[in-house]
């Protein structure tokens, strides 16, 4: 993306402060001068310079670019679903400037060649930062470790067999212990595949009524419980992704109280929807872990509120319309999440006053960055201009047909949302601009 010099006028700016918290820089609107991909100046009443495009934000909210700890950007043999170009455009539409890309691509990212191929494709096609995860085990088979140190040195940001659980706890022990020597960590898809069996939705009164095989909440809970014990044994860092059950939240809360290095994220769709919200056999509501019960959802809120759950992550997973039109039990798992993520959690967590706006911004910016042990980007002179500008008052209806993604599998098509990403800057370049927004652009 060509980086132009920009002057953003009149934004309400939030940034990380010295203590690592998000706070408003000033109650008054500020101007931001963007030059050569960096923030050149932050202040009031900045005067436009030569060759600068001027955008009047008119009081919109300026945030650090969002970081997503969990996405499936496809490409490779699943380029019909999405590729790095289309999927990162979708990410930019959702305000994400950094996306962690899981390793269960086809073929899987489990060796140096596939990692180098990934990095090359990202460099050529991606419009935001993509951080590749490498597999924990070869072929995601849950048995033999990949060359983890080599992969970490070459740019793998974390390790995960996501999409599948590691069922052998001896393998997880080795992985946790070994990956410490690469100063990296494991992202856990926590599931007991035997308990899940052939299940395709939450085991519940609804699964009985639909005649569908259920995935019990215990499938996640027993995996989280034993993985915490293995972490206690092996040391290292473990991040639980897409936590969906009350039991898992309680276990992680206790593990944190015990001082273990555990972190956790939750998806917007698990915060927004319950199993009973699924229209009959609508595979756009099918994902793994599945939508859970009302009690689970309430526990997720509590986990977010007390900090047990650290971050928001989308588990963005494109699938073609044809694949999703199959018999429900045979339709693939996963839903898209980039473009609806912020509006959903803003409504569910902030407008309901469960957490502060600042805390939500932290859960989508500095907290995931810290989990990744990457440098915290603030909005200040000399910092990289990765910025997400949101219109917090905008009321709109999500229309997935307008998505830049090649896929359309979302449970939120037609959903009324409050707040919308208006502009996304990556390294100073405009990677997304909402055509409906009131931003004024003028070249001086």
């Amino acid at each position, binding site marked *: 993306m060509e980086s132009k010099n920009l002057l953003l006028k009149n934004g309400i700016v939030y940034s990380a402060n010295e203590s690592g918290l998000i706070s408003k820089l000033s109650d008054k609107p500020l101007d931001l001068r963007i030059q050569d991909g960096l923030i050149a100046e932050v202040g009031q009443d900045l005067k436009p310079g030569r060759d600068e495009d001027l955008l009047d934000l008119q009081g919109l909210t300026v945030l650090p670019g969002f970081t997503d700890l969990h996405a499936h950007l496809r490409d490779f043999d699943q380029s019909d679903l999405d590729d790095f170009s289309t999927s990162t455009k979708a990410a930019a539409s959702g305000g994400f400037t950094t996306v962690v890309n899981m390793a269960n691509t086809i073929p899987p990212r489990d060796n140096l060649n596939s990692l180098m191929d990934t990095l090359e494709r990202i460099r050529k096609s991606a419009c935001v930062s993509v951080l590749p995860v490498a597999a924990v085990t070869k072929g995601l088979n849950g048995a033999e470790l990949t060359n983890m140190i080599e992969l970490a040195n070459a740019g793998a940001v974390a390790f995960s067999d996501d999409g599948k659980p590691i069922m052998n706890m001896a393998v997880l022990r080795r992985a946790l212990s070994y990956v410490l020597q690469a100063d990296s960590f494991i992202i856990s898809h926590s599931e007991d595949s035997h308990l899940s069996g052939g299940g395709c939705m939450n085991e519940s009164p609804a699964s*009985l*009524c639909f*005649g*569908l095989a259920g995935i019990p909440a215990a499938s996640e809970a027993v995996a989280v419980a034993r993985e915490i014990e293995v972490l206690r044994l092996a040391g290292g860092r473990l991040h639980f992704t897409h936590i969906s059950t009350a039991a898992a939240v309680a276990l992680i809360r206790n593990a944190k109280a015990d001082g273990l290095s555990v972190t956790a994220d939750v998806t917007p769709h698990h915060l927004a929807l319950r199993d009973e919200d699924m229209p009959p*056999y609508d595979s756009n509501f099918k994902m793994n872990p599945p939508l859970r019960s009302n009690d689970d959802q309430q526990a997720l809120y509590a986990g977010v509120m007390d900090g047990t759950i650290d971050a928001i992550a989308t588990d963005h997973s494109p699938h073609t319309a044809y694949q999703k039109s199959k018999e*429900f039990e045979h339709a693939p798992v996963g839903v898209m999440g980039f473009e609806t993520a912020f509006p959903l959690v803003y409504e569910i967590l902030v407008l309901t006053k469960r957490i502060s706006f600042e805390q939500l911004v932290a859960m989508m910016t500095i907290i995931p960055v810290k989990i990744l042990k990457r440098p915290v980007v603030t909005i200040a002179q000399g910092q990289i201009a990765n910025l997400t500008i949101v219109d917090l008052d905008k009321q709109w209806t999500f229309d997935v047909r307008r998505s830049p993604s090649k896929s359309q599998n979302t449970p939120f098509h037609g959903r009324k949302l409050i707040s919308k990403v208006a502009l996304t800057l990556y390294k100073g370049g405009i990677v997304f601009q909402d055509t409906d927004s009131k931003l004024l652009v003028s070249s001086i």
Partner: protein
Amino acid sequence: MSSSESLVATEVLQESIWSGRRHLIDTKDLTVDEAHHLIDLAGRYAQGGAAAVPLPAVHRGRAMANVFYENSTRTRSSFEIAGKMLGLNVVNLDVSSSSVAKGESFEDTGRSLVAMGFEVIVQRHSSSGTAHQLVGMIGDKVRIVNAGDGANEHPTQALLDAMTMLQFKKSLEGVKVAIIGDVTHSRVARSNLWLLKRLGADVHFCGPNTLMPSYLNKFANVHLRIEDAIKDADFVMVLRINHERQQSGLIPSIYEYSQIFRVDHARIALAKPDVKVMHPGPMNRDVEITNALANDPQYSVVERQVANGYFIRMAVLYTLFVHT
């Protein structure tokens, strides 16, 4: 001809009872009036044959497709004969040897049948929800009858079972029905549960706990001992146990199943004296029901169920053509 036309006119009077739905997908949504309409109409077919309530001439000769993605002899034949007796042109699609075997989706198969001019599709599929999904895909163009979808529903089976029960009871209000066997994998059990509850019956279940779906006790009485389920029952419905359940480890052995959960004369003696024993077929004799009980005319109404199935399917097809 004039007498048949007048019969049609009386049928039309009942049209308000039928909601106008073009499809029979499940019993979950069926109203009491709709169920009674179908059962009453089936009763008229049972008494007078197809001529009792003939399909109006405008509908005769229309094409009906039997699309069975899963093997079935009984249900497919029953639908076939029901359609033919009403005057429909019935085609059985052998999907196991057709394009489906080459990977065609069930949506494409359905759309092809619509393009060929079929006006009703009777579908059986091994996956739950496929009838519902097919309605979403092509339901505006064709009538769809669910002949069984996965573990979800088999509505004509439940209707024929209710019809059979109503041949012995004036009403099912408060009538105790014990359903014995593998409920987890049974569409027959689910369709019966929803319909029987709606008709006021008192539904009880027993089987190996490994084959009882979670949360079943939210909808019905679930017993650990078969004797408690059968005690004072008006009807005992025996489900087929699939031998694969042993291979997949859900039951220790077919032998143990037969000893602990088989319905026999000794256990049926705990029920009401006039209890009737039902089975959706095909039976594994001496596994889930003893050969002697299955053959005992005092208790067994299995063949009556089969006959009623044919009349119920005529009533369903008639209604979907005439009352929509």
